[in-house]
C-alpha cells in the first residue's frame, strides 16, 4: 500500500513536469503578444520594450525555459499581470470557493444520482425511470448559463426562496479566514447565521452544477445495476432468502458502484476546475472566473499556475479513484503490477 502510494507520487511528479513543459510551449506559440495586453494597446514602443526586458521575454527560449523551470521548482508561480499579486496567493484566494461549491455539487449529484440510478434499473421503464431519463437529459444537454439564469429568475427573483448571487449576504461579516471555505470557517467560528446564509447562497449554483454530474452518475449506475442484477450471484442472494433491499444494496450496488466511481471521479475533477459560466452568473469568486479572465487577458503566469493546479487536482482525484477501486473490487490489488 505504502509502496503503491510512493510510486503514484513519483508518477505524479513526472506528470507535473510534463504539464509544465507543455504549458510553457503553448504559451510560446499562441498567436498573441502578452505584452500588448499588459501595456495596453496605446502604449509607446519603448514601454513595451522595457516590459519585454523586465519579464525576460527578450531572452532566448532556452534561457526563458530555464528561468521558468527554476521558478516553478521553487514553488514560485510568478506574479499575475492582472492582479499584481503572486499567482499562488490568488489561487489560495479563489480556489477554496470553487472547492467548496464543487464538493457540495458533487455531494448532491451522488446522493441523488445513485438512488435514482438504482431505482430506474429496478423499476425499468416505469415512471421513475422516465423521470430519471428526462432529468439526465436536461442535466447533460441544457447549457448551464441558461439553467442558472432561469433558476435565478424563478427561485430568487420571482419566488424569493433563495438569496441573490454571491457567497454571502452583504450585511453579514465573513468569519476569520482559515480555510477560505465559508461553510468550514463559519463552523469553526460557530457562526450559525453565516453558515446557513452561505449554505442558502450555495444551493442554486450547486444545484445547477450538480445536475450535470447527477445525469452521468444516474445513467451509469442504472446501466451497471441492470448488468449486475442479471448476474447469477444475485439469484444466489435471493435463493438464500435475503430481503430485496439487502439484495439490491449489499449484493448488487456494491458491484454496480465500481464503474460509477470512474464517472464520479471525472465529474469531481471537472467541477474542481471551476465553471466560468456558473461562477459568473452566480457572482461566485472562484477559480473558474479567475482563470477565465486570465485567459482573456493573456495573463500567462496565472494561466500556467491555474493549469498546474487543475492538473494536480485531476491527478489527486484519479489517485483517490484508484484507491477506491481497490477498496470496492477485491480483484484489484495495489501491491503489484
Amino acid at each position, binding site marked *: 500500500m505504502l509502496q503503491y502510494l510512493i510510486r503514484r507520487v513519483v508518477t505524479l511528479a513526472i506528470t507535473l513536469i510534463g504539464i509544465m513543459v507543455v504549458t510553457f510551449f503553448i504559451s510560446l506559440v499562441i498567436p498573441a503578444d502578452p505584452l500588448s495586453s499588459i501595456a495596453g494597446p496605446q502604449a509607446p514602443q519603448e514601454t513595451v520594450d522595457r516590459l519585454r526586458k523586465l519579464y525576460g521575454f527578450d531572452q532566448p527560449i532556452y534561457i526563458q525555459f530555464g528561468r521558468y523551470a527554476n521558478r516553478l521548482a521553487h514553488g514560485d508561480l510568478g506574479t499575475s499581470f492582472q492582479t499584481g499579486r503572486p499567482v499562488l496567493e490568488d489561487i489560495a484566494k479563489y480556489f477554496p470557493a470553487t472547492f467548496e461549491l464543487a464538493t457540495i455539487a458533487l455531494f448532491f449529484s451522488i446522493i441523488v444520482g445513485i438512488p435514482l440510478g438504482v431505482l430506474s434499473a429496478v423499476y425499468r421503464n416505469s415512471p421513475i425511470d422516465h423521470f430519471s431519463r428526462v432529468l439526465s437529459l436536461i442535466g447533460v444537454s441544457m447549457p448551464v448559463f441558461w439553467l442558472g439564469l432561469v433558476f435565478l429568475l424563478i427561485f430568487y427573483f420571482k419566488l424569493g426562496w433563495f438569496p441573490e448571487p454571491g457567497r454571502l449576504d452583504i450585511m453579514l461579516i465573513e468569519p476569520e479566514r482559515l480555510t477560505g471555505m465559508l461553510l468550514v470557517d463559519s463552523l469553526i467560528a460557530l457562526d450559525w447565521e453565516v453558515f446557513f446564509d452561505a449554505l442558502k447562497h450555495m444551493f442554486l449554483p450547486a444545484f445547477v452544477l450538480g445536475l450535470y454530474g447527477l445525469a452521468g452518475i444516474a445513467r451509469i449506475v442504472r446501466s451497471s445495476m441492470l448488468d449486475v442484477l442479471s*448476474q*447469477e*450471484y444475485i*439469484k*444466489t*442472494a*435471493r*435463493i*438464500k*432468502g*435475503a*430481503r430485496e433491499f439487502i439484495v439490491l444494496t*449489499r*449484493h448488487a450496488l*456494491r*458491484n454496480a458502484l465500481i464503474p460509477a466511481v470512474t464517472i464520479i471521479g471525472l465529474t469531481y475533477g471537472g467541477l474542481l476546475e471551476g465553471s466560468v459560466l456558473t461562477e459568473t452568473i452566480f457572482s461566485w469568486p472562484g477559480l473558474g472566473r479567475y482563470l477565465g479572465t486570465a485567459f482573456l487577458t493573456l495573463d500567462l503566469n496565472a494561466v500556467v499556475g491555474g493549469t498546474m493546479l487543475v492538473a494536480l487536482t485531476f491527478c489527486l482525484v484519479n489517485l483517490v479513484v484508484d484507491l477506491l477501486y481497490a477498496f*470496492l*473490487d*477485491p*480483484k484489484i490489488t495495489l501491491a503489484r503490477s
Partner: protein
Amino acid sequence: MLLKDTPVTTDKLLSVQDLRVHFHTLRGIVHALEGVSFHLNRQETLGLAGETGCGKSVTARSVLRLIDPPGRIVSGRIIFEDRDILTLDDTAVRAIRGGEISMIMQEPKMSLNPVIRVGDQVAEALLIHDTSLNRSSARTQAEEMLTQMGIPEAHRTSRRYPHELSGGMAQRIMIAMMLVTRPKLLIADEPTSALDVTIQAQILALMDKLVQDIRTSVLMITHDLGVMAETCDRVAVMYAGNIVEMGAVRSVLKDPQHPYTQGLLKTVPDKANPDHPLYAIKGNVPSLLQPQNHCRFSDRCEYAMARCSREIPPVYQMTDDHEAACFLHDGQSISSGGKQVDLMNP
C-alpha cells in the same frame, strides 16, 4: 390410473401438481411447463433428467418461486410439507428460501458475489434465517461447515474472495452455503456440469455425505444419466415441458417405458464398443410457442400413432413406482427396443 389424482400423503416433502409456467416473449407465449406433476419423499433423491430447454431449471426455480420476468407461474400447486408455496406471502417465501429449501447452481464461480469474502457469504445464509445469531458465531459455524466440505485451512479460505478460488473450491463453498442452514430440501441444478471431470465425482460424494448427515431431500437436476444412476433414488424424465416418465431409478434406467427415455438412454456412448457410431434421436425439439394439444414427442417418435398427434397422452401407471405418459401403454407395455448401455451395472 392417473398420477394427478393420487392424494397427498404425509411422507411427501414436496408435491408439485399440474404446474404451468409461461414466458411472455416478443415472439409469443413460450409454454415452458405444461402441467408438470411429481412428488418428492423425505430423505429421497429425485433426479430430473432431460435435454437443455426441456424445463428442468424452470421447474427448480418455480419451487422457490424465483421465476424471473417475463416468466410467470400460470397455474398449479407446489405443496411443501403442508404449505402451498404459490399462495404464501413474500415474507413466508423468503423464510423458506435458503432456510428450508436451498439451491445449488451450475456455475459456482458466477454464483458467488465477487466483492464479498466467501466465509461471509456462507455466514450470511445463517444470519438471514436466525436473527438471534451474532456475526462472529455465524462465521465460526460457517468455517465449521467449510471444514466439513473438505476445504483445507477453512479459516484462511473463508477470508478469500471468489476469484481466488478454483471452480471445485467455489462449488464446495456454494454447497456449504446452501446446506449450512440444514434445509429440508436441496435443489441441485447441474451441480457438476461446469466442473472438471476429475473433481465431479469428488464434489458429488461430498454433497452426498453431507446430505445424508443432515437428512436432506434432494432434487437433482442433470442431463448426465451416469450421475443420475449413481445418486438418485427415483428419476423423472422431462421432455418439452412435460414429465414423460417417472419411477425408481433402477426401473426407469433398466426398463424405460417411454420412447423418449429409450432414445435418451441409447445416446449414452458404449464404452465397451468404442467404434460403435453414436446414436442420436432424429428430429429437433419442438417449438413451445404453440399450446400443447398432442404428444410433444410424436414428431420424433418411431412408434407414433395417429392419436399421438391429436391427443395429449395421460400418465399410465406400469407398476407402483413407474409411470409413463405414452399411448403405447393404453393396454400393454412396450419392450425396451434396441441395445443400450446398462447404467446400473457399469
